[in-house]
């Protein structure tokens, strides 16, 4: 199992009601459903991925995270998950705040744009980093927001969001020291 999925699964209490924003092909949802007995819903923009979710027996809404959340009633979900999708939305702050309106807890997984490898590429190559974890060129990246773990911590601080858990990961390892330097991704469990 992907390490980020395992971390998220560990953060979610069994039997919860979960909304996965940018749920992709539904793999994480399926794990939450089967291993954590959660009731899961997803939102995904890519039509092709909707078919894969439905094939897995999942409920998904075909639409944009920026506009789909408004319909849900307050605190409807136990968890709202934004794994590797926050950096691709137009209005990330609004999406996070909306996620807190409809969910009790929010789980955010971000790619760390200031990992050591990325820093070295900027420093020595003088080019915007292209790494295995961030494989896109500047002109074809789906990412709209570029942030580091520290940036996200600052954001939480400014918006009175409490970080309950924070797990930095690099490939299949959990990073405990110098997270912002050595982690390629980071997963936060948040409360407001």
């Amino acid at each position, binding site marked *: 199992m992907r390490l980020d999925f395992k971390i998220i699964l560990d953060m979610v209490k069994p039997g919860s009601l979960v909304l996965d924003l940018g749920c992709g092909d539904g793999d994480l949802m399926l794990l939450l459903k089967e291993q954590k007995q959660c009731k899961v*819903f997803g939102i995904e923009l890519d*039509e092709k991925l*909707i*078919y894969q979710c*439905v*094939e897995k*027996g*999942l*409920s*998904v*809404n*075909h*639409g944009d995270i920026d506009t789909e959340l408004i*319909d*849900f*009633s307050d605190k*409807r979900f136990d968890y709202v998950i934004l794994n590797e999708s926050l950096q691709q939305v137009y209005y990330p702050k609004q999406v996070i705040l909306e996620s807190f309106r409809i969910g009790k807890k929010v789980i955010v997984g971000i790619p760390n744009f200031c990992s050591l490898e990325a820093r070295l590429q900027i420093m020595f190559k003088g080019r915007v980093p292209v790494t295995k974890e961030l494989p896109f060129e500047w002109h074809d990246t789906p990412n709209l927001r570029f942030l580091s773990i520290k940036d996200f911590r600052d954001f939480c601080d400014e918006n009175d969001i409490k970080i309950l858990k924070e797990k930095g990961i690099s490939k299949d390892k959990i990073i405990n020291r110098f997270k912002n330097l050595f982690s390629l991704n980071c997963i936060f469990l948040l409360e407001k």
Partner: protein
Amino acid sequence: MEERSVGIVETQYLTCCEPPQELLLSCGEKLGPITIAYETYGKLSSNKNNAILIVHALTGDAHAAGYHQGSDRAGWWDAMIGPGKAFDTNKYFVICSNVLGSCKGTTGSASIDPKTGKPYGLSFPVVTIRDMVKVQKFLVDHFGIKKLLAVAGGSMGGMQTLEWSLLYPDMVESAIVIATNYRHSAQQIAFHEVGRNAIMADPDWQNGDYYGKTIPARGLAVARMIGHITYMSDHSMEEKFGRKVIDTERRGYDFSAHFEVANYLKYRGDSFVQRFDANSWLYMSKACDHFDLAQDQKLTDVFANVKSKFLVISFTSDWLYPPAQTKQIAKALKANGVDVTDIGINSKYGHDAFLVEVDNQSKVISHFVERIAKEAGN
């Protein structure tokens, strides 16, 4: 006949609402007896939990799949219903009936009024989508089915599906709502109004009293032509016809059907009058126009008591029932905490996509129904 066909089928008939148990219609009038024309495909399981009701669009009929003896014309949703297809007849018992007020076997304006011994004509009461659904309920009850695994339909069929989920929430495990609106919009009404005007302006219409005489073929053909334009898309028309012309001596310097698109519309209009009754067109179109689930309420309140799970499908190039309108249905359901999956399928075929966009629609419907059956414990 293709391999995955349900094969030769026959339309069957059921009579209900015999006086004095006539059906009370939305308009306040009573109607009975009512004959229902229907077809079934597949086998009803012993505990009767594998039934799917298919509901048809404006000019559809009970013949949704397979072939009638001696005919090479498949049912209107044959691509979707059959062994191994989206509505898999190896697993499910599929029912389709002709709606109330239509002219394809179920009681409508062309039927004989038992009180007069003559066709109803315009004395037939104006029926609503809700009335159609109430009649379908008799058929479902007739089979002893307590709960339908799914009700599914596109366009006017989508309206009936929504109505089913509201009127009989305990009988609908899931609703598959395709290319429709929760209420007819001004534009949708307007197109219908033009069609009705075409029929009523035909001198042969005779206030609906034309049975046994010359039928208002011109008017009905024009109504159908307008319909066809709204069912297609700019893209699909351009691709199919472009500016192609039919070689005529006058090379279009007269008013014959010189462009291929004109010829096609003429052909579709003329062939339609052979198989559909003009008055029924008036009744069907009016039923759609009356359709408004929300009325003075908020749409979210309308769905407060639904118990079904939903699959809501729209098509990107459908400009008669634009995806945003269909999406409104999914959004209102979501707001009520209903389990709803919605998808906007990329298609260039306009409103017709629900009939022709088979592959992607099949994928999503077959897996959805499979899940519903599994969750229902089948």
